[in-house]
Structures are given as C-alpha cells and as structure tokens.
C-alpha cells in the first residue's frame, strides 16, 4: 500500500545509489512447508520495506547446489543474503567469498561457522530435547514406563533433523525406554508411515517424527493402529494440526519460520543501510502444540 511506497523511497534514499537494494533468501530446499513459510515471512516484510527480494531455492537438499545458489546470488548483485545453512561447515567458504564482496549475511533457521550480521534460528537440539521430554511425560501419564521408542529421520545428511534426533535421545538418557535404530524416510510421508507401521508392529510404545513428512507418517500410523502408541513430532502443517487435534499426535514442536523470515529481512535491510543490529543472536523459539492449544494455530 501507500506506506510501502514511502518506505521504498526512504530506503533507496538512504543507500548511496538510486538502485533498490536486493536481498536474496537461500533455503535448504524448496518444497518443505517450513521454507515456504520462511519465504512468506520474508516476502511480506520485503514488500513493506520496499526492497528487491528473491528466493533462490535448491531443488533439493544438496551442499553443492546451495553453494551454487550463493555464487549465483553474488553474481546477481545481492546486497544481502539470508541463508539457512545445510551444515555448519559446508558453505562457509562460499559465504566468506560473498562477504569479501561486501555482501551482508543473515542466518535464518540454521547458522554456519562464519560470522554474520545476525542469526535468527531455533536451537534444533534443544527443541528435540523438548520433544523427548513431552513424549516421556505423555508415556508416564499413560502409565507406560518402559518399552521401545522409534525415531523417523529424514536422512542422515540433514543437519537440522540430526540435531533434533540428538536432543531427543539426550532426553532419554537414564530412562528405561529403549531407543531403536533411527530409520530414514526421506521426509516422504508414505515411506515414513511404512516405517512407523513397522515400529508399531515391533512393539514400540512411542514414535518421534523429526520433520513434517515423518510426523505426518507417524501420526497416520498411530491413527491407523488405533492403539496406545504415542507419537510426537515437528513442524506444523494443516495435516499435522488435524492429527494433533484428533489425538493421533501427542504434540508437535513448531518453530516460527515466518518470524525467521520477517525478522531476518528487517535485519538484512538494517545491515545494508549500515544501521546497528542490536540483537545478533535471536532464538525465534519453539512452540509446543498439543490438543490444548491447537486451536490457536489453526
């Protein structure tokens, strides 16, 4: 609207040339709801602030592709890059190169091992631990104090879900539950559901889904079983929320991807304009969505 236009003028007035500044978002892949939400948050904020914005998403999670995206963003004349790093180390050199060109780096979701203007992320490990604790609570409430627990991963190369799994396992240290070998469903709901079904057959009392697809799979398997298996998971999507609502999922950890996007965008513009960024390391937080509060998220 009108306000947007005012801001556009002022921001271009601030920068040294007439050109609009350009911010590019690079995520891990393009299809996950999570990234779509980050994009949405960033885009809305970019419209408000009147900057040029583009989302350069790799087709799939692949370090080489992500590095290509960084190089492309630099070549495309970006002033700032918002990035969700695939891994802490894999893209640092590419980012260093970009920084060498005077480009501002903002981390969203997952940081890498090189300094940036600001980081808006969740601590995946801590969130995973919360999920573990919630599951234990749920199991104890159901008077189940021991038994097997299954974990559905995405694939072993995805850092964020590996961290969630790590945190989840920490929550179970010195408990009587037996954590099974993690199975990987490639984030595919159907494959994850097969895995969950097999866990249930194997006598698991609890299941943990580490991302959207695995959580949907876990929830549906529990629902199909109709038994007493308890599942917790990650991410919020419509399907997940309805699974929570009907009780097939005990609860899910929801990060706030749109907040990452919008806050990241604000910081990016500040950095470009040379303004000071006060909070450099922001945990955008995790909400635990359960049957009690699910209505707030729908």
């Amino acid at each position, binding site marked *: 609207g009108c306000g947007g236009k005012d801001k556009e003028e002022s921001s271009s007035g601030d920068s040294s040339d007439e050109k609009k500044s350009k911010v590019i978002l690079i995520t891990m892949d*393009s*299809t996950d*709801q999570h990234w*779509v939400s980050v994009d949405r948050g960033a885009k809305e904020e970019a419209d408000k602030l009147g900057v040029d914005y583009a989302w350069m998403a790799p087709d799939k999670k692949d370090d080489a592709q992500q590095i290509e995206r960084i190089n492309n963003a630099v070549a495309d004349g970006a002033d700032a890059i918002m990035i969700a790093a695939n891994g802490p180390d894999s893209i640092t050199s590419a980012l260093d190169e970009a920084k060498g060109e005077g480009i501002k780096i903002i981390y969203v979701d997952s940081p890498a091992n090189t300094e940036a203007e600001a980081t808006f992320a969740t601590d995946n490990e801590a969130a995973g631990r919360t999920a573990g604790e919630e599951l234990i609570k749920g199991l104890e409430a159901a008077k189940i104090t021991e038994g097997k627990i299954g974990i559905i991963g995405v*694939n*072993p190369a995805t850092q964020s879900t590996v961290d969630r799994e790590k945190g989840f396992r920490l929550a179970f240290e010195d408990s009587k539950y037996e954590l*099974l*070998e*993690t*199975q*990987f469903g*490639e*984030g*595919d*709901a*159907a494959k994850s*559901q*097969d*895995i969950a*079904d*097999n866990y249930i*057959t*194997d*006598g698991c009392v609890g299941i943990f889904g580490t991302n*959207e*697809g695995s959580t*949907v*799979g876990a929830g*549906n398997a529990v629902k*199909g079983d109709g038994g007493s298996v308890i599942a917790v998971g990650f991410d919020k*999507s*419509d*399907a997940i*929320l*309805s*699974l929570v609502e009907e009780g097939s999922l005990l609860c899910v950890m929801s990060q706030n991807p749109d907040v990452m996007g919008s806050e990241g965008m604000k910081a990016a513009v500040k950095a470009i304009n040379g303004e000071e960024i006060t909070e450099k390391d922001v945990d955008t937080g995790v909400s635990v969505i359960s049957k009690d509060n699910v209505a707030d998220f729908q």
Partner: protein
Amino acid sequence: MEKKKNGIVKKFLSIRGMGQVVTVTIGLIIMCVIFGILSPSFFSGRNVGNLLRQIAPILLVGIGQSYVMITGNIDLSIGSVLGMSCMISATLMTKGISPTVAVFITLAACLAVGLINGLLVAQFHLPAFIATLGTMQTARGIAQIVNNNYNTDAIGKAAQGFRDFFYYGKLLGIYNTVWITLVLFLVFNFLLSKTRTGRHIYAVGSNIDAAGLSGVNVVATTVKAYLVSSFCAFTVGLITCATAGMGTMDAGNMYEMYAVAASVIGGVSTLGGQGILVGTIIGAAIWGVLQNGLQFAGAPVAMRNIVIGVIVVVSVLLDVIIRTGRKPKLKKSN
C-alpha cells in the same frame, strides 16, 4: 498320479520366464526365513498384513514399468506422475470437490502424461530414456505448481471414505490396498498374457521392425503400455494421498527406480520382449521384504543400502549363472 503331477510341474516350468521366477522365489523364501529368525515379529500376522500393504505400491508401479520395459522402453516419469496424482487429487479434495470427481480429473491428467510419453517414444522416435526424463521433470513441476508450491492441507473429513477405500479399510481381514493391487494385477496379467494387445507388446519389444512389418500398430501398442504405466502410478498416487491424508509434492520420488528394480529382479529384461508379471510380484516382494525385514533386524541405514545393493546384484547374478550353467559362455541374449 505321479506322472500327472509331473506334467503340471513341467507345464508350469515351461511357461516362458518361469525359470527366473523360481530362482528368485527361492531367494525370497531364504530371505524371509533369515528375517524370521533374526526377529520374531517378522512373521506376526500383523507384520504380514503391513508387509503386504507395503509391497502393494511397489508392485503396482512395477507392473507399469514391466509393461513399458517389455516394449523395450523405460518410464522414468512414474514417480512424478505418482506425485501429480497425489497432489492433484488432494488439492481438488481440499477445494471441496467430491473425491469421485477428483479421482476422475486426476486420472485424466495422469493418462495424458502416459499418452505423451507413448507418442514421444513411438511416434516421434525419441529415446525413451530422454523422453520420460523430460516428462518426469515436467510432471514433477506440475505436482508442485498445482497447489501453488505448497503441500496441501489435510483432505479432511469429507474424504474419509476415500482414505478408507484406498488405505485404511479392510475386507475379509485384508487391507483394501492389497485388494486393489490384487485386482489390478489380475487384470493386467490377463491383458499381457492372454490378449492380442499383450502379444503385440512382447512383439514390439522383441523386434520393433518385424512387429511393424507384420502389421502391428507399433505406436498404439507403445502408447498402451505407457498408459498402463501411468494408470498404475495414478493408483499409487491415490493410495499415497489416502495414506497421508494430504498431498505432498515430492511423493513418489525415486519410485521409478523401485519399479525398475522390482521388474528386473523378477526377470523383465531391460532390452524388451522378455518377462512376466508373476516375476514382478516376486521382485516387488523382495524389495519390500528387504526394507521391512532390515528395519526389524535393526540395521542402520548404511548397512541397509549395502545389503540391498548386494542382494540385488547377487540375485540377478545367481540367475544368470544358473541359466547359463550348462553353456559356459553365453552371448547376450539380445
């Protein structure tokens, strides 16, 4: 009595391609025994039910791929068409369209891809690999764009019947998914082994020139095979949608490869003209049992990949060795 039995066995074995099927069936049985020993839950009624339901989609895409491979081609678009089917049907249902209508619109879209595949390959003489690589990309793009680059919301209460029909329901104690697969298998097996179309599919794969010169409509035959393939992918797409209760954009990723594996393990030749669907069942079963059994055995993902890889190679190797045991040196049977 003895003799008659012998006659039946002989007749059974004389069915073309039955040799390889027998070999891999023995492999499958050995595998099941090992998994049964490693993990007691493997043979539980519950797991057998699950297992059948897990094999079903692989078998279905395997049937489609077998049809195409017997014509001497390949269909790499299977996974993407599956994704399209899943996304289109789910999107329509979330928009409040009745499941039945949604299914038919989805069917039309999927068959269109099959038609294009068939025409590109047979009418325009594109190599099947590249033609279907192209449609694979395109169909995946369509799956993504159909709900504007988002996975769909839950297909909701209205679609509960749809979900039960394709996945959650049971008939006579067996999951509907398994029934659907069984019926389709019987239909497509009949089509391939007992009808003129089936005969033509083999002929085109065996020698396309000879088939054409004999008056076989090569284009129509190839198109039919691709339509079967798309139809199978479509069905699995619906099952996937019913399973998750939502549409996911990357549903069916890599399924074309599972389909190839099921077909080839079951004795369908990548060069065309050879193979029977009974083999594809066994191939799909081996694939499914490996996935399922290795999970019960608690194998980490790396070990699973290695074991699956080695077993795929060894099973086919064994078959080659057994078949050619008498002839020490065999030329590639074209």
